[in-house]
């Protein structure tokens, strides 16, 4: 369910940047720490974008894995739920590194530069 709110926020950003032009494609980065599922965003998108300039626009997701930076040796490793030990030095835990954000990266609109 938490994708509903995120999709609303995403649509707001897209429509603002489209400046009224018809939107064809939306490129989105989803960091794994956020826990958002692309297929759920897709479902809400179809509903929310209906009747707007972004209706029918295709979403393209780029997934960024969740990683931790070891506080011991600085190695960056996947935080995939299998454990929190650094594979390099064995130290437990670390600073959240990649995969924390969800961003709208670019949109493709019909016609020239939007006004």
């Amino acid at each position: 369910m938490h994708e509903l709110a995120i999709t609303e926020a995403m649509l707001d950003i897209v429509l603002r940047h489209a400046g009224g032009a018809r939107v064809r494609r939306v490129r989105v980065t989803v960091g794994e720490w956020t826990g958002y599922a692309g297929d759920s965003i897709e479902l809400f998108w179809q509903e929310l974008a209906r009747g707007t300039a972004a209706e029918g626009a295709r979403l393209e997701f780029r997934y960024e894995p969740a990683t931790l930076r070891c506080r011991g040796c600085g190695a960056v490793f996947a935080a995939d739920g299998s454990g929190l030990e650094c594979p390099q030095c064995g130290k437990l835990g670390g600073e959240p590194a990649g995969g924390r954000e969800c961003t709208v990266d670019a949109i493709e609109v019909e016609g020239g530069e939007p006004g």
Partner: protein
Amino acid sequence: MSTTVPVVERVLSANDAVAAEVRARLDGKGIFCANLMASPGAGKTSLIERTVEALKGEIAIGMINGDTSAAAFDAERSQRAGAASVHVNTGGKCHLEAAMVRNALSLLPLEGIRLLLIENVGNLVCPMSWKLGAHVNVLIGSTPEGDDKPYKYPKMYAGVDVVVLNKIDLLPYVEFDCDRFLRGVEALNPGLRTFRVSCRTGEGLEEWFAWLRDKARAAR
């Protein structure tokens, strides 16, 4: 013909802006605000009841209770305990958003309040992403949930400022290795303030009350 427009905007930036607005409003009134997060059943409402009962004589407390439905049980419980409470129906959303808090603030008698407790929706996944403008984010864990929670929800444990481990009276009856739990917390969030409490027996609560009392006094 089509054109690609670079955007690169964080999806939650609009929420963050409203959270900053909420924080400025709270600071202007000298109110200390804590955002309480937990999985359902960890004891959020019980901790709030105990806290309000213990502190209401010395500090005026406001409450915002987030719920996914119109059932205002939790708000009624904090109201009975002695806090000015606003129930926020998230309309099915599994977390509170800064705009919901902003709206709720307008329904509270802010002039008299020194401590504002926000009871977030019971969920360990997304509430952490949505800043609310609170001064501290508090995670309430409980022993029956298991000692693996920091390992399974690292984002939550890495992002909070305080962990309250509730239901320590159940330690003899549940599989919960306190050391393993605290090691996981420390690994993600070194030096994190932790409290071990039982809302049922009252054990450990004094320390939590004292911490909150100091924070609320310092905010003035």
